């Protein structure tokens, strides 16, 4: 029973990770690639890590406490990942726009119209 749940979680994670990596190849410019890579790989990594966490929590009861430590440390790694990943994406997007890479086929670009933001 619990193994089926873990398999499903791992499968979802692998599917979204693959989708993100594939979107990295397929999309035309930096911003859309960031969409694919940030959202999909973060979501997929959350699910693969959740598989590990469920594995750890389940065997915490049946076998030994070290599996519980595995679950907790995996959870902290997941938390750090979720905090840092969108921030890195924001930094890259901002740097790309400032260094003169504008979105391709854009309908509207309010940031370019406004000019340089003073910070």
């Amino acid at each position, binding site marked *: 029973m619990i193994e089926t749940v873990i398999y499903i979680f791992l499968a979802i994670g692998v599917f979204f990770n693959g989708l993100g990596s594939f979107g990295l190849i397929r999309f035309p410019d930096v911003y859309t690639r960031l969409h694919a890579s940030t959202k999909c790989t973060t979501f997929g990594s959350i699910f693969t890590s959740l598989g590990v966490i469920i594995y750890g929590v389940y065997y915490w009861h049946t076998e030994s406490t070290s599996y519980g430590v595995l679950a907790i440390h995996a959870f902290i790694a997941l938390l750090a990942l979720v905090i840092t990943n969108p921030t890195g994406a924001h930094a890259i997007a901002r740097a790309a726009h400032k260094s003169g890479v504008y979105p391709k086929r854009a309908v509207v670009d309010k940031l370019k119209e406004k000019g340089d933001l003073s*910070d």
Partner: protein
Amino acid sequence: MMSKIVRTITNILYSSILIFGFYVIMHGHLTPGGGFQGGAVVASGIALVLIAYGYDTIKNWIKKSNLSILESIGAVSFIGVAFLGIGTTFFYNFLANSGSLFGNPTVIGINPGDLNTAGALPLMSWAVGLKVLAGLGSIVLLMAYGIKKGDGE
């Protein structure tokens, strides 16, 4: 000075990086880690603050002279702990299995570990950790400083 989102995340992450680096140094004799690794982690935290706030803001918070004092403390205490065991040999682990500070004997074989073991090793680990922390941190700060000064010439 990077954007506001990056700065707020830096504020949250910096203390986490500090306590995690200290954890890595402290548990060097039980889990993977030790002086080098923990020092590198904390130095990366200093690099993070440097990039998020810029050199001008950070120079009031983290003084280079404090870092060099810290490095000297690390070097002196490392050699000092090494000399303390000179009754037998240089670098003799005089505290192990003695029952005092860090002096509990380890159970031989497979075990989860007890923090209060390993004798002089945690002390040396802390000395090397301080040294690596201060050394690598001041290298990054000095290079940022040198680039900034060089533009005016």
